[in-house]
Each structure stands twice: as C-alpha cells, then as structure tokens.
C-alpha cells in the first residue's frame, strides 16, 4: 500500500506488477530524455540573438525529426505490447473470485469455498480501531492463496465501478451486464488494498477493496 508522501509506484506483489514497474522505468527513460532535449532547445532559442525571418526548405531537418520520433515510439511500443500480451494470458486457474460492485460496496463470491458470499463495506472513521487505515479498511475481506493463479471476475449490479489492487497490478472495470476477468498471482502473503477506480456516485471514494493472500493450507482450511 502507499505510505505518507509516496510519489512512486507501490512495491509489486505480483510478477505482472514488477514487469509494469520495469516498463514504467523504460518509459521514463524516454520521457526524461525528451524533456531534457526540449529544455536544451528552449534555452538555446532564448539565448540566440539572431533573427531568421526567411528560413525555408530545411529538408534534412524535416526528415530527421520525423524518423527519430517514429523510432522512439517503436522503442516504446515493443515492450508495451509484450507486457500487454503477458497480462492477457489466462492460465487455467482452479480458483476464482467474483467481485460484484454495488453502490457503494463490493460483494464477493468464492466458488471454491462452497460459493461463500460476503459483502465488503468500508469501515467508517468512528468504527476504526487505533492505527487502522482511514478509507481503506473493510469489515469483511476475501482471501486468495498466494503463489497460485486466481481468476478475478468482476461485474456490477448497478453502475460501472472498477476493481483495483495497485500492488498486484490489476484494475478492471466492473460493468453491469458484462463479466471482465483477469488473473492475479500474489507471490507473497499479505493484505492488499485498493479503491474503486470508476466514478460511481456520491460514495465512490468510500468503497475500498481489500484482499488477503494466505497460504494454500490456510485457504483450504477456511
């Protein structure tokens, strides 16, 4: 989860998220390079005392500044597509977690646990115990086994919501009348927090998502 004054991405808790962090670094290399180049050009233009009213026909420059950005975009696109297809892999997972969005809470179903159903409401500030996270804690949280693929299926009963767990690198719209699915595979046990990421009404900011990753043994004994 995020801590105070955090501006970076969260520590990854799944391999997909660590790949996303690496891609983010890759994109930032490009962006910082472009930014520095633009700053240098700007400073050079400001310090230049010459006037060029009659500049015409700079063909070589036009060719260079067309080809180079195209190559930079290819440099950005190739890892991006690789990651996109990596995220889209759906191994046959025997564990499923259904997340249904409501205004303004989440409900979960675990078919592997005799279709256990639970509603997950945010804990209001007055109900928090000392030290609990405001706007993030919920009364019931689903569990998934770690180091195991779990398929998350989201949908909604009313308006569009979005099920998000940033440290697992997952964000999926919960659209009424549609089932979206994605896989998660936390590589550590822990508790992962997220918040609804699609505006869904007055209490959109007050419907967090909390998932607990536990060992397969504990999950079996639930």
């Amino acid at each position, binding site marked *: *989860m995020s801590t105070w004054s955090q501006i970076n991405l969260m520590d990854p808790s799944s391999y997909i998220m660590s790949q996303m962090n690496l891609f983010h670094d890759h994109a930032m290399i490009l962006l910082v390079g472009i930014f520095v180049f633009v700053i240098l050009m700007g400073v050079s233009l400001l310090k230049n005392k010459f006037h060029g009213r009659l500049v015409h026909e700079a063909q070589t420059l036009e060719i260079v500044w067309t080809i180079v950005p195209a190559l930079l975009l290819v440099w950005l696109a190739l890892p991006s597509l690789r990651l996109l297809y990596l995220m889209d892999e759906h191994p046959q997972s025997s564990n499923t977690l259904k997340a249904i969005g409501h205004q303004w809470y989440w409900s979960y179903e675990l078919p592997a646990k005799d279709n256990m159903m639970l509603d997950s409401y945010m804990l209001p*500030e007055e109900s928090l115990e000392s030290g609990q*996270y405001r706007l993030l804690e919920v009364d019931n949280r689903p569990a998934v086994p770690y180091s195991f693929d779990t398929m998350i299926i989201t949908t909604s009963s009313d308006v569009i919501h979005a099920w998000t767990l940033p440290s697992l690198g997952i964000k999926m719209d919960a659209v009424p009348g549609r089932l979206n699915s994605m896989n998660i595979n936390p590589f550590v046990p822990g508790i992962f927090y997220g918040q609804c990421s699609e505006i869904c009404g007055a209490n959109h900011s007050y419907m967090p998502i909390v998932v607990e990753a536990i060992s397969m043994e504990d999950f079996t004994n639930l």
Partner: protein
Amino acid sequence: MSSHLFRLALRATKVPQRTISSSSVCKANIVLDQALRDEIHPKIGNREIVGYGSNGLATYIDSCEFPCPAIRFKEPTAEVIKLQEKEKGDWKNLSLADKKELYRISFCQTYSEMHAPTGEWKVIVAAVLLTLSATGWLWMYVKQFVYSPPVSTITVEWQNKTLQRMLDQNQGAISGVASKWDYTKQRWKE
C-alpha cells in the same frame, strides 16, 4: 486597405514592384492615384511614403527586423523641407544637430531606444505579489472559517499506530517501510 492594393497602385504608377526597397524607392517618386491617397493620407497625415515597410501598409513601425518603415515619421513642415534640401548638398556642411534632426525626421526611435528596458517587470512582479497576498488572505479565511476539523487519524499517536500496523502487515517489503525495519532486532535498520 490591403498590401495588395498598395502594390497594385504602385504598379499602376510605373514603379517596378521588384524594386520596392527602401533605397531604390527613395530614388523614385511614389505617386498614388486619388482614391488611394484619399484612403491613406487621412490616417497618416501629410507624411511621405518612402517604401514597402514590413507588410506594404503605410504605417510607421520601429522594428529591428524591418529597419526601414514605409513612411517618414515627421510631416514635411517648412523646417523639415529646408533641412532635406540641405541634405541634398555636401554632407560636410551638415552639423551634428542637423544629422540628428534628419534622423528624427525619418525615424521615431534609435535602436538603443527601441531596445532600452522599460521597467515593466516591476509592474508584473508587483501584480504577482499582490495576487499571491490576496490568495494568502483567502486561504487563511477558508482555513479558519470554512474547513471542518481535521480527522482523528491525523494525530501523531494514530500515525504511529498506523506505521506499526504497516510493519505488522509487511507492507512495502521491497523498498517501502517494511524494508527499512529489522524484524529480528525489532528496530530500524541502520
């Protein structure tokens, strides 16, 4: 009036278009037809049109990109005409004051005057500081009278408990808070 008309008029008076430069035009007479004269001269007075300028319009503009404006700056009064007649003779007969006056007849500012600092930055800084101070007052008012009291989780005690909870949950095990805590020694890593 468009520059097209100006060029059309000049062409009609047999001044070749390609020679519309400040120096060659000075040697030719620019004769406009009555209609154009009625349109242009009420705007510029009696001032002499001497060239194309920056865009073909008969306006006076001081600019280092276009050094020679389309019209002279001053109107041809008796003193001006007398000095211009004197200019046609030997320039050694011109005094420094004459030369300066001849410059001022044709031009409004010198290059130094064009590029001299205006001090406008002081006005801009003053306006920005005034705006910032107004914002400051507004912010103090809103903070005092509008905002609700801060939440209970903002206290130092709660934040310490939150930090302990993050450590208990092993949040940020790679580069976050838990990575800086030594779990065996139960203290921060050095």
